C-alpha cells in the first residue's frame, strides 16, 4: 500500500449521526479485526473486489461474453463471480445495470480531498469530515496525509478507529484530529480475541497513551453493545473502571445493538456471527447499562 492512493469503499455525504454538524464520512477499506458483529463487512478485506448485485441484474449476460478464465459462470440463470485476481475492469464497464461492480475505488489525495470539499458549505457549526472504515489506520500514511490537507483547509476532522495499530501512526495523526471515536469493545483479552480475532492489549496500550496525552479531550470511547457477547454488566463495568483510572473526565458512549447489518453479508465471504433472534436493546435495558457505567463514577457518559 502506497500513500499515493487509498482504497475507499464508500463516501457518505450528509452523515448526520456520528459527530457534530453535517459531515461527510469516508470509509477506508481493510480492517485487522474480525468482529463477529461487524456492521461494514464490505470494509474488511484490503483488496478491491468485484461484487454482484442479484437484484440489479437484468440477465443480459454481457458479462459472460467478456468473461476470461471462468471469471463468471452462469448456473441456471444465476451469475457467480470467481477468480478475483483477474481484472474485471471491462466487465464492470460493460454491465448495463451496474450489477457487477467493484466494491471500492482508489482515490488519490487530491481526488479524495475534492470529494470532501464538495460539501464544505455544509460544514459549519462543527460539521466536517469523518474517516471511518474498515480501520483507517490500515492505510495510515495516506490517512495522515489527507488529515493534514483537511486541517490546512480548516475542515473539522473526526476519526473512527479500533486503535489496533502502531502507536507511532497514532502519534503522528493526533495533532490533525479534532475528534476521535475509539472503540473498546471487550475488556477481557480472551473474549476480545474470541469475538474480534485480535488481542485487546495493543488497544488498551494505545488508549492509555492517548488518554494521558494533551489530546485526551478529543476522545470519545465507545462500546457497541452486542447481545450474548459483550453486553454484560461485567464487561461494561471493567471498561468504565479502566477508563476513569486513566482519565476521570473521559467521555464514554454505549451504542445500542443494530441488527440491520446482517442483510449486507450475503454479498461477501464473511458470516455474521450474531444470532438472528437478537434485537435492539429496550430503553429500560439501555438505562440499566447506563447505570452500571455511572456507578463506577464515570461522569461524562454520553446519552442520546
Amino acid at each position, binding site marked *: 500500500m502506497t500513500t499515493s492512493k487509498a482504497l475507499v469503499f464508500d463516501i457518505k455525504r450528509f452523515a448526520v449521526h456520528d459527530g457534530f*454538524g453535517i459531515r461527510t464520512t469516508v470509509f477506508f477499506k481493510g480492517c485487522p479485526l474480525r468482529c463477529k458483529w461487524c456492521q461494514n463487512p464490505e470494509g474488511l478485506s484490503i483488496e478491491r473486489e468485484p461484487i454482484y448485485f442479484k437484484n440489479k441484474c437484468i440477465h*443480459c449476460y454481457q458479462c459472460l461474453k467478456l468473461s476470461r478464465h471462468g471469471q463468471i459462470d452462469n448456473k441456471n440463470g444465476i451469475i457467480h463471480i470467481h477468480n478475483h485476481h483477474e481484472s474485471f475492469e471491462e466487465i464492470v464497464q460493460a454491465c448495463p445495470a451496474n450489477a457487477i461492480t467493484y466494491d471500492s475505488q482508489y482515490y488519490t489525495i487530491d481526488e479524495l480531498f475534492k470529494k470532501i470539499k464538495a460539501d464544505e458549505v455544509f460544514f459549519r457549526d462543527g460539521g466536517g469530515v469523518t474517516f471511518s472504515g474498515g480501520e483507517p489506520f490500515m492505510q495510515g500514511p495516506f490517512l495522515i496525509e489527507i488529515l493534514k490537507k483537511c486541517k490546512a483547509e480548516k475542515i473539522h476532522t473526526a476519526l473512527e478507529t479500533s486503535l489496533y495499530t502502531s502507536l507511532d501512526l497514532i502519534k503522528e495523526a493526533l495533532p490533525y484530529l479534532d475528534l476521535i471515536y475509539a472503540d473498546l469493545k471487550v475488556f477481557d483479552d480472551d473474549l476480545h480475541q474470541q469475538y474480534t480475532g485480535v488481542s485487546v492489549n495493543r488497544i488498551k496500550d494505545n488508549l492509555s497513551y492517548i488518554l494521558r496525552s494533551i489530546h485526551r479531550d478529543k476522545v470519545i470511547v465507545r462500546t457497541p453493545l452486542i447481545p450474548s457477547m459483550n453486553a454484560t454488566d461485567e464487561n461494561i463495568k471493567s471498561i468504565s473502571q479502566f477508563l476513569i483510572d486513566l482519565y476521570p473526565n473521559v467521555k464514554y458512549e454505549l451504542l445500542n445493538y443494530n441488527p440491520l447489518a446482517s442483510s449486507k453479508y450475503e454479498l461477501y465471504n464473511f458470516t455474521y456471527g450474531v444470532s438472528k433472534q437478537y434485537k435492539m436493546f429496550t430503553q429500560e435495558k439501555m438505562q440499566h447499562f447506563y447505570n452500571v457505567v455511572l456507578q463506577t463514577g464515570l461522569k461524562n457518559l454520553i446519552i442520546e
Partner: protein
Amino acid sequence: MDHLYQTKRISLLKDKMLNAPRYASIEQARIITRVYKENPDLSIAKKRALSLKTVLEEIEIGVEPEELIVGNRTKGVRYGVVFPESGCSWVNQEFESLPTRPQDRFLIHDEDVKEFRENIFPFWQGKSMEDKIKNRYGKEIDAMSKVVKINQKDHAQGHICPDSSLWLKLGPQGLMDQAKEKLNTCREDQREFYECTIMVLQGACTFMHRYGQYIDSILDKQSLQNQESLKVVRNHCYFLAKNPPHHFHQALQSLWFLFVILHMESNASSFSPGRMDQYLYPFYKKDKETGLIDDQQALELIECLWLKFNEIVYLRNKNSAKYFAGFPIGFNIAIGGLDQNGKSTYNEVSLLCLKAQYHLGLPQPNLSVRLNKGTSHKLMQEAIKVVAKGSGMPQFFNDEAIVQTMIHDLNIEPQDAYNYAIVGCVELTTHGNNLGWSDAAMFNFNKALELTLNHGKCLLTHQQIGLDLGGLDTYQTYHDLERAFKKQIDYFIEEMMKAEQVVEKAHQECLPTAFLSTVIDDCLEKGLDVTRGGAKYNLSGIQMIQIANLADSLAALKKLVYDEKMIDQNELLKALQNDFKGYEVIQTMLLNKVPKYGNDVAWVDKMGCKWAEYFRERMKDYTNYRGGPYHTGMYTVSAHVPMGENVGASPDGRNALTPLADGGMSPVYGRDLSGPTAVLKSVSRLNNSLTTNGGLLNMKFLPEFFKTESGMNKFEILLRAFVDLQIPHIQFNVVRKEDLLDAKVHPERHRSLTIRVAGYTAYFVELAGKLQDEIIERKTYDNI
C-alpha cells in the same frame, strides 16, 4: 409564544369548514349575465365594473356565528364559481362531469345546470374570452400544445400581490376620494377608467356594510357568547364601509374583504397578501401597547383569517385541474426577509403567523419564509418546528439569490427588490406594483428534444408537429444534434410568442379589472387599467419544463452515444420509437451508465443549464403586450405529470407517458442517490437569472429527523447552507411513506392530511391517484 394555544372557536370553525360540501355555483354568473343583457350599449370595461358592483350589492352572503373574520364570495364554503366573462364553453362541456372527474370535484345542482344551459351559456357563446381566443388562434394553440402550453386562455390572470398597505391606509373610501379627484382633472381617455374605479369601490363599501346588516339580522338567535363577538365584528364591518382600519382586528377584516372582492372581480388564482408581518405590525404594535389585545387574541384572529384563506377555491377545467391539482389558490404570505434598507427583519407577527400554521396545518395560506444571511436563529427554529409538523410549510425563499438578480436582470429598483413577495406557489413579484403574468406558458424542452431526435414527429402520435431537421439517425456529432435542437427551440419560441400576443390582447379586451387597478401602483396615477400596462412593472413569465430530464437525456446522448459510442445512434432511435420494448439493455444502460442531474456532477448539471440559459437569453428579444419584458421560471406545480403524458420515451431512460421530474429544479425522483447536500450543490449550478419568475425545489424528510434538538440544529445548518448556495427556493415534505399509502386506502381517516405538491400544499386525499403515487415515490431523506 410557546404558551399560545388553539382556541375552541378555531377548532369548531375548522371542523365546519372541512365538512362543508363543495358545490359549483352559478349565482354570480346569473348576475353578470343579467347586467350584460340589460346594458348592451356600455363598454366592456363599464359592463365589468357595473356587474361587479351589482354582485357586491346582491350576492347572497352568510356568517358563521363563531367567526371573527367574515366574508366570502359565495354563501357556501369552497364553492366553485362559474365565471362567464372569462370562459364558459368548457363549463358547458364539463358541467355534468364536475362531481366525478378525477381531480378537483364539485357537486352540482341539476336546476343550476338547466339554468346555465338555458339562460347563461347561450348569451356568452362567442363572447367570452375563452371563445374569442379559440376563434382567433385556437388551431395554432392546439398545434403547439405538446411543446408549448399556453395558459390563461379561459380565466383572468391572477398571481398578483396587491398594495395591501395602501388599502389598509386609505380603505375603499379613501381610494374613491383619490379617483374622484383624478376624474375632475383627467384626460378624456382616462375618464372611463376612473368612472369604473369609483363604481367598484362603491360596491366594495356596500358589500362591507351588508355584512354589518346581515349580522344584525341574525344577532337575536345567537348564544350570548357569540352575540358579543358578533357585535364586535358587525361594528367593524360598518366602520370599514366608511373608514380605513384603526385596529389589528379591523385590519385583518379589511384585508380579507380586499381579497374576497379581488376574487369576485377576476375569479383567478393567486391573489397573494405578501408581506403581512410587515404591514400588519404597526396595527399589532399599537393594539398591544394600548392593551387592546394580547398575543393569544392576536393569534386567534390570525387563525380566523387562516381559515378564511381555505374557504375560497377556484373552479378550473378538467385539463387545468390536472396541471394545478388540489386547489392551489395561492394566498401566499411571505414573512421575514429584508427591510427597506436591506437589513434582515422579522417581528412578533411573523412568529404568530408560524404559530397559526403550526396549529392549523391547512393548505392555505401558502406560508413562505424569506431567508437571508442575517436571519435570526429564533425565526429559523420556529419555522423548522412548523416544517417538522409536516404540512409542507413554510417553504423557504432566499433573499441572497433573489434580490440582486431582480435588480440586475429585471431592472427592478432596489427598494422594490428588497420588498419582494411571492404570489401563488413560488412566483416572485414586487409588492403591490406588478402585473407579473406568471406562468404565461410552459415550454416543454423534453418534447422539443423528442422532435429534434425524431425528424419533427411526435413519438406518441407520429404526427409532424415540429421542424424536420434530421434525427438521431442522421446527426453525425453531438454538435449537429445541438444545432438542430437550437433551431427547434427557436421555432417553438416564435410560435409561443405569437400566441401570447393574442392571449394578452384578449385579456385587455374582455377582462379589464378596475378594482384590482386601484390597488396596483401606478394604475390610479396613470389612469390606466392593469391589463393595459398600468402597473409600475409589467412582466411575463415563461416556465421551462423540465431541466432535470433534459440534463439527463443530453448527458446520456453525449456520453453514451457520441463520446463513448456504447450505444448505437440508430439503435437508440429505434429504442425510443418502441418505448424501449425489446431494447431493455439500452434502457438499462441509459439509466445506469451515465451520471444524473442532482448528484453534484458538474458536467451533467450544466447540460441542462446551458439550454435554459439559451432560452432565457432569447426571451430578451421579445416584449409582452403591455410593453414589459419576458423572463423565465422553473416550477411545474403538478404539471410534470400531464407534461410527461405528452412526451414519448426519452434518452434519460424514462418510459413514454410517465411523469417528468417534479418541482422545477428538483432532480428526477429516484435518481438523486448522493443525498440532499449533493442535490443542493447541483441545483445551485442553475443561474439565478433563470428563475426570476420563480424556481421550485422539493425535498422529502422523515419526521424522525426532527425528533431531537440536534436534528433541528442540523436542519438549520442545511438551510443556512441553502442560503449561502444562493438557491432561490426550497420546500419540504415531512411525512412517512406508510401514512401516505394508508391514506390512499383509507381516505376517510386522513381528511386533513396535507402534502406539498409543488409550491403549494393540498389535501392528499383530494389528489388524483396518479399524482398521489408520484408523490409517494419521491425520494425521502432520513437518517443517512
